[in-house]
């Protein structure tokens, strides 16, 4: 498994993570066949504390699917930031993960973006597997 990020995608995710720091950012990944061509920034609507959680509510999810279809692509997954925390999925991420989607995580330390990784849920839901992330 691998995910390629088209021109400007890597920068857009990092910029969103920096903008919302020290809170988590989130957004949709739109593209086709493992190639992300666009991001769609979404509001973090969590009520559990945005410094350590994010939530994409169903109405925003529907809008993201609609945007992907209008762009002639698919919804490939979601990105979010881990403020002052490594770019590794947590148990909470695993408990809430959907199959098929790529989960891109960017670590933002003291307002500066660092590592970016991507993960896919195993079919039996037991763990995430890392996937190769390539940027244009």
């Amino acid at each position, binding site marked *: 498994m691998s995910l390629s990020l088209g021109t400007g995608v890597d920068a857009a995710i990092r910029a969103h993570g920096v903008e919302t720091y020290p809170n988590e950012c989130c957004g949709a990944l739109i593209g086709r066949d493992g190639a992300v061509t666009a991001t769609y920034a979404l509001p973090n609507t969590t009520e559990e504390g945005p410094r350590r959680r*994010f939530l*994409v*509510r169903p109405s925003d999810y529907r809008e993201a*699917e609609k945007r992907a279809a209008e762009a002639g692509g698919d919804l490939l997954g979601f990105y*979010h930031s881990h403020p002052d925390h490594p770019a590794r999925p947590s148990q*909470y991420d695993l408990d*809430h993960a*959907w199959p*098929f989607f790529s989960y891109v995580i960017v670590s933002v330390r003291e307002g500066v973006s660092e590592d970016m990784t991507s993960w896919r849920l195993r079919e039996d839901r037991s763990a995430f597997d890392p996937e190769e992330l390539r940027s244009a």
Partner: protein
Amino acid sequence: MANTINIPTPLRPFTDKKESVEVSGATVGELLSDLTKKYDGLRKHLYTDEGKLRNFVNVYLNDEDIRYLQKEQTPVKAGDTLSIVPSVAGGR
């Protein structure tokens, strides 16, 4: 009685890539049960090990969240459409 269930992107690999599936039943729960009977791979992504709908799985009857109706006991009539809509959540 046939009804349609709209399937979100991450679950389509389990429904032969279909965006919607025809199912039958008298309640929301029966429609979902018919769906997982047809596509068994969906079950663990929709339900917990205890058989409850996962809390980030939202089910809409037409445009109404079933949590505000009678949940899985909500009766359905011919032509009603069910939609499974993910909440996407995570964090450190």
